[in-house]
């Protein structure tokens, strides 16, 4: 594990920090089956994905299509039934600080303050400058004023900011995000998406972002992977032509509307198929 404080230039916090680890994610023919026999539920079926270092990829799909399960296999929370996941060429066998995870909600430790939640990762990783590292990320997500607050005292948006800071503080090579803004109200969600891109433009970490919101995926991603359910698998893949830096007013651009249309079409036809399957 590389030492965050050593790579970061603290004298110029406003400048771009030197910290930039960009991992490659290879999902190789991964299937995930829950249960056995008659109860067997194929959550993910024979899926392969290659995510380039520094890429921002969104996995888009309806609820229950196996997005979280696939992401969890990268995090090391579940072991694929077949196939394997490689991060920077290393097979994933268990969770680790090289893969930062941001959950949908309620994942901050309620008994730790904002600051202590962020500092936990660095100190567990043996970062001798854990305090300074935490200080830096606290400042990055704009919560210096709330350093001594407990999670219960923060708004949902603030909690997710802490979640992002916490995940980045171990200097991971990939950032995994499971519908991190899904529980927020629409206005907060938009603000959070913008802040995430701002942070990402500084860090350039590889991001694998799960969402069921088409607009969110178009606004954030370089590449959009569309999944469908029963069994969960990838049904389409789109490169996002929308230029960076992104801004909310881009949603009226022609290329934005086009790619959004493409995503919606796939989702619609897949939903119809699933509907027919259920009523067959």
């Amino acid at each position, binding site marked *: 594990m590389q030492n965050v404080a050593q790579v970061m230039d603290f004298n110029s916090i406003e400048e771009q920090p030197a910290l930039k680890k960009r991992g490659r994610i290879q999902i190789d023919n991964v299937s995930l089956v829950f249960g056995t026999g008659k109860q067997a539920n194929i959550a993910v079926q024979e899926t392969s994905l290659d995510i380039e270092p520094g890429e921002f990829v969104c996995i888009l799909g309806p609820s229950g299509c196996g997005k979280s399960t696939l992401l969890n296999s990268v995090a090391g929370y579940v072991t694929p039934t077949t196939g394997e996941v490689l991060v920077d060429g290393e097979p994933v066998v268990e*969770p*680790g600080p090289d*893969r930062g995870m941001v959950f949908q909600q309620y994942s*901050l430790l309620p*008994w730790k303050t904002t600051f202590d939640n962020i500092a936990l990762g660095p100190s567990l990783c043996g970062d001798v400058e854990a305090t300074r590292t935490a200080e830096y990320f606290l400042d990055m997500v704009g919560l210096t004023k709330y350093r001594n*607050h407990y999670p219960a005292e923060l*708004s949902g948006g603030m909690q997710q900011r802490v979640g992002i800071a916490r995940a980045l503080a171990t200097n991971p090579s990939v950032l995994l995000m499971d519908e991190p803004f899904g529980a927020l109200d629409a206005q*907060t969600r938009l603000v959070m998406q913008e802040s995430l891109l701002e942070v990402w433009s500084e860090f350039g970490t590889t991001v694998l972002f799960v969402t069921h919101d088409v607009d969110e995926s178009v606004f954030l991603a370089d590449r959009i992977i569309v999944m469908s359910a029963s069994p969960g698998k990838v049904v389409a893949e789109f490169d996002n032509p929308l230029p960076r830096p992104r801004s909310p007013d881009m949603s009226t651009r022609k290329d934005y509307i086009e790619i959004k249309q493409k995503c919606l079409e796939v989702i619609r036809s897949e939903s119809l198929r699933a509907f027919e399957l259920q009523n067959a």
Partner: protein
Amino acid sequence: MFTQWLKRDNNQRFAISLGSVATMFGAWVFVTETGLANPLFLPGPKAIYLAFIDCLFEGYQGSTLVEHVGTSLYRILAAFLLACLVGIPLGIAMGMSKTAHAIFNPFIEFYRPLPPLGLYTLLVMWLGIGESSKLALLFLAGLPGIIIATVQAVKDINPTFVLATKSLGASRMELIREVYLPGAGPTILTGMRISLGFVYTVLVAAEIVAATAGIGWMIWDAAKFLLSDIVIMGLIILGLTGIALDMIMRFIGYALMPWTRATRKFSKT
């Protein structure tokens, strides 16, 4: 901080409690002063007070009241602390590992409902009539409550906390320190408070054999001579020490677990 903790209790509720206690006391004074109650079985407050003063300065059967109370409190606290030292780690292990649960649970479930006196008979045969059998009985009375509460508390911890902390690089021991122990803390404290009550309930049983001091023994001995004033005085003192110890535990919990005092400042989203 202590005064802050005291103030946190609702003043109105405190007034109600005070009122109900005062009413009970009033009823006691009434039935004893008017002669409605036989003083042999229910002496009045004054008789109790005199017994208290007498035991305090003259002692009871060779030991002063302070010695009786001190001896019993020592036994209760030593056994209870030991029960915590064993019960909390064991409960955490049993909550985290189904195997550990399967190994230890049968024994705990088996001895838990046994009557303390029956258990004590065996303990005396094994450990002799001295101090160790007494401590062992008190310890065994306190243990299951702590274990059961700790196991449940560990099982109830949000699994996301565990995953998130593993992703930050925590080892198994670090998970216990950072997640399981603090996460289970509030419920463990409740289990400890209930368990201390169980320890108290077997105190008299533990002190009836070969004791010469102890508040439980004093009550038992006084009952043989129908000294109901001493019996009631002993029970009141026992009850008051119980309340005091419970308050101390709640305060320690309040001081050690500041996050339980955190209040929402924003709406949920």
